[in-house]
Every structure is written in C-alpha cells, then in structure tokens.
C-alpha cells in the first residue's frame, strides 16, 4: 500500500477516463492518475457496439459526435498508436420504417446539414444499393451519412491510455475506489484498495457505476444503469459497408473489418440493476429482427453474446462538468449508450472545465443542475 498525491484522480479506465487523462496531460497537467477497478475498457467501453455517428436529433449531440468522429479520423497518428484503432468509415444507414420516422429523419437531416454533417435522405432503392442484402420492401426510406462508422473500442482506449502514459499519466489497473474524502465541501482524496491518493480534483468517469461514485461524495444523480446485450458472429467475407440501424425496429448491426457481424438491440423491460448476464430471449429477438430486415444473415453463425451497461440520463445526453455541492468533483457520465463515440470530445471538454478554459464546444447546459431546472432537450434517436 502506497500513499500518493495527485493533481487529478480520474475514476474509470474506459474511453472517457483515458481520453480525459490524455487531454489533461497534453495540456501539461502533471500527476494525473486514472483508477480502474479491473483492466482498461472492462466496463461499458469494451462492451459497446462500437458505432460512431453524427446523425443525432439534438444540436448538442450532433456537435459532440462530429468533433469526436473528426478526431477518430486521425487518431492513429495523433495518439501515435503502435497498432490500429480499426476505424471503418462506412457510414450509418438508418432506416425509416414508419411515417413518424420519415418525418423525424427529415427534420434531423436539416439540423445535421446546418451543422456541416453530410447526411442525406435516400429512397429504399438507394438504400438497397448501399446494403444489397437488405429487404428494402420493409422500409419507407433511410438516412445515410457516409462519415459515420465504427472502430475497435479496445484499441481506441489503449491508444489513449498509451499516449497518456507517455505524457506521464499513471494508470492504476485492478484498483478499486472504496471512498472519497470531502472536507468543507472540497475534495480531499480518494481511498483505494491500493492506498490513499490525496487530490483536490476527482473526475467521475465510472460509466455504469457512476451513480455509486457520486454517492460517495453525497451527490445524487437522476441516472440509472440498464443492461444492453449484443451478439457477434463468425467472420465472413466483407459484405456490409455501413452500420445498419433502426430505432423503431430496434436494431443496430455492423460488420467489423475483421469480418464478424456485431449486432444489438435494446429492451424496455431490461433490469435496471448492475447485472451484465446474457439472456436467451435476446438471442431470439435479435435473430428475428436481423433476419427480417437482412434476410441472408440467417446463414451466419453466432459465436458469442455478451452485455454491458448503458448509464441512462433523463434526456439521454451526457452529464458533464463540475457540481455545485462539492468543489473539485467533475462528472463525465450519463452517456446513455454513447460514451464511446463521445470519448474524444469528453476528454477535451472535461479537461477544459477542470482548467477553467474556454470550452471548445459550450457544454455548460449539460451540467447536473439541468435536471433540477427542468431544462431538458430529449434526444429522440437512441437504440
């Protein structure tokens, strides 16, 4: 057991925690420590569907996503990663299966185009040209943005972590936070299973466990964690370029550069606890949806299923920044299933908040206090 001092302690070794550590270190902050209960990306990051899209329904989410995706385009070089983050920019094809979706997508696309996002509305026939194995008779149209895509969450997190470590960040793996000390309304230090860390600043980037961390300093957050499940198939020859997605039909499905298909869906009856078990029901429902919309995929063999936690906020947008109850306590949580794709922007805006810098993207309206004030803009586009 070693006691130490840090300028910032980041709780959570997922994409958010590693990106925040990197951004701080890049700005010259010394003695940044990341504390991770298990191994890097062992939580939501490493369990996610790994898609990244700019096609959102709120201006804020569009901006956050656009910034992040533009970062991913050059991340291998920027982070000087020795392997590959496997960014496949094959687009997102979001199908409209109901009149309501057609209307919503046209509205979304207008907003997205106004923000410089090159999405467009396409006919079923055009959609079929992009994903030839889809049943286009099931859809009324689709939204397509060629700049969306997906990448490998393990490698992306590792790329950030390695770059952060080269800049002097310490990453404590297999270390659990057991308590956070607050004195006179200020952060004083973090108790861990590997010793005490004195620090004036703590960042809660604990993903599905963020509410437990906030509770340690007496901050209640209106978030809950919800299990989401995924399956992966054996690898096959490249046949699908974009992420195929539907909100009303409840599916997202991508083919990784490696060849395997990864697909997932939500379930309104998911338990709202911290379980990350696998269920048979999911397999059946997932296979049904997938085969109905993408019939030839019925021949694929699934090799594994797993699950992870969405940290759901009331308006499905992230919770960023300081809290008024405790000085030195910062939040980067409540991502509602989009923490991975927002990773780069999370790193930037949280480091700016800690250092009191002008934010690259103004995110003050994403503070925890928005829920008290009732200033919510609901994100309509979530699976």
């Amino acid at each position, binding site marked *: 057991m070693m006691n130490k001092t840090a300028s910032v302690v980041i709780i959570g070794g997922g994409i958010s925690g590693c990106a925040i550590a990197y951004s701080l270190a890049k700005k010259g902050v010394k003695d940044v420590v990341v504390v991770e209960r298990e191994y890097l990306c*062992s939580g939501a990051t490493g369990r996610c569907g790994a898609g990244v899209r700019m096609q959102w329904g709120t201006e804020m989410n569009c901006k956050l996503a656009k910034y992040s995706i533009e970062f991913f385009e050059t991340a291998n070089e920027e982070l000087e990663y020795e392997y590959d983050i496997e960014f496949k920019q094959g687009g997102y094809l979001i199908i409209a299966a109901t009149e309501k979706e057609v209307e919503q997508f046209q509205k979304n696309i207008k907003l997205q185009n106004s923000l410089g996002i090159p999405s467009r509305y396409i006919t079923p026939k055009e959609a079929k040209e992009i994903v030839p194995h889809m049943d286009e008779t099931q859809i009324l149209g689709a939204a397509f943005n060629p700049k969306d895509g997906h990448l490998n969450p393990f490698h992306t997190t590792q790329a950030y972590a390695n770059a952060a470590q080269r800049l002097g960040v310490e990453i404590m793996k297999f270390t659990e936070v057991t308590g956070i000390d607050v004195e006179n309304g200020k952060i004083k230090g973090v108790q861990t299973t590997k010793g005490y860390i004195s620090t004036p600043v703590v960042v809660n980037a604990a993903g599905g466990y963020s509410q437990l961390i906030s509770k340690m300093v007496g901050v209640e957050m209106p978030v809950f964690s919800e299990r989401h499940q995924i399956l992966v198939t*054996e690898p096959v020859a490249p046949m699908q370029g974009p992420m195929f997605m539907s909100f009303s039909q409840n599916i997202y499905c991508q083919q990784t550069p490696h060849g395997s298909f990864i697909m997932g869906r939500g379930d309104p009856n998911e338990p709202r606890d911290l379980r990350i078990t*696998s269920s048979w029901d999911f397999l*059946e429902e997932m296979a049904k949806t997938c*085969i109905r919309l993408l019939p030839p995929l019925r*021949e694929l063999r*699934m*090799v594994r299923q797993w699950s992870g936690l969405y940290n759901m906020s009331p308006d499905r947008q992230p919770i960023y920044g300081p809290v008024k109850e405790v000085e030195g306590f910062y939040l980067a949580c409540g991502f509602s299933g989009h923490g991975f794709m927002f990773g780069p922007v999370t790193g930037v805006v949280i480091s700016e908040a800690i250092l009191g810098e002008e934010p690259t993207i103004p995110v003050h309206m994403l503070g925890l206090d928005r829920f008290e004030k009732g200033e919510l803009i609901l994100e309509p586009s979530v699976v």
Partner: protein
Amino acid sequence: MLKSTGIPTQKDLETVVPSKERLAKGPVAIMECFEKIPCNPCYTSCKRGAIKEFEDINDRPQLNVDICNGCGVCISNCPGLAIFVVDETYSETEALVKIPYEFSPLPEEGTYVTGLDREGKPVCRAKVVKVQNSKAQDRTPVVAIAVPKELSMVVRCLSLDDYYSDNTIVCRCEEVTLGEIREYIRKGYQTIEEIKRISRCGMGPCQGRTCSQLILEEIAKATGQDVADLKVHTYRQPTLPIKLGLLVGGEDDE
C-alpha cells in the same frame, strides 16, 4: 500408482533424487528404477563402482552419489531406459538432462525440441546440446537437452516438435502466435481478458477452448504466478456456434 499408470509418484521419486547439495556439485545419475526385476547391467557397466553390488539380482540399484560423476555410461546400458543424468551446474538458469532416446529420427544438435514430463505432457522448450549414438551406446542413443533449472526433475522425454517456439499458433481461430502473446505479456497485458482484447485470442468460433489454457500458462511463466491462481476469462453462451436462422426456429443446423 506406479503399477497402474507406469508413472512414479513424488514418494517414489524421493527414494532416487539426490540432495540439493549433491545436485549443486555437478552431474549425477538418477536411477528411476522402482520395480524389483532380475536385472543388473547398471552395476556391471559402472567402471567407478558407484552402484552397489547386487546381493539379490532382483534388488533395486543403490547409487552412491558421492562416487558417481555423472559420466552417463549406465544410461545406454539400462534395458528399462530408467536412468537419466542431470547436471544442474550446466548454466545459471538451465540444467542439462541426459535422456535415453530410442525413437527415430534422432534430434539434431543445436535445434530446439519440447521437453516432456513423465506423463508425456509438454512442459518447456529445450535445446538439444548433444546426441550420443556411437557403438558404445549400442542402439540406445543418449540425448542431452538443456531445460529450465526448475524443471530438471520434471523433464524426462522429448518431442521433436518445437511447441514452444515463437512461431507456434496458440489461437487457431484468429491465428495468434505464441511469440505475439509473449510480446503482449512483455508490454504489460498480463491478464487473459486484456490479451484477448488486444490480440483477438479466444474471440473466434472456439471461444478460447484451445488457447486460453496455453495463454494462462504463458502468463504464469512470465509473471511467476501459479497458473491455478489466475483468473480465466468469462464464459458466455453458446457453447458451439449457432446459425441465426436456427435461433428463430424452423430449420436445422447442417
């Protein structure tokens, strides 16, 4: 145990393994002869008189380890292939084990082979230091291999296949080599979950059935832990790959 499996137990071995002090002095014969059988060529072949004269030809050999200099003449003379010579002073980290080897082809000096334990299980990579196959060996060649010192009393046979080479494929589904795994361990990925995520090892159709034990053994070796103490990765359904079409019902797989 010996009678049903042919493999001596720890207790059997205690009767023939010399003391640490003797092993530290240099080469010495290990007479792994546990059965009372009418046989004494070890005694007649030893020119130094290190093996006690047999009162009854059925006796087990009695070696005086202070007289034995580990010359190895007795190895080829034992019809039961029960005698080995171990030299723990061979190098800082390695011991030399001389093994009677009656298989064909013989290994070549300077190549790498795999050291097997008494059950025939691979335990380490071993370098072939010398192959003796002159008239004196009388068709029982003696192969001297260098093995990690801690395995000097474990390795008792060899396989010509170099299982522990860096080129060996550990994960057949994703074609990950042992060399790559060793590289990841060196870089600090020291749990099977981390290695899986960085290398794809265990993510293929077999879901780690082939590779996970091998990787755990490499981690244990590199980090000095007991393999039994290491965490295995999470097992999830299905046990065998299943067609998505089968999951929705109404068709057979194959």
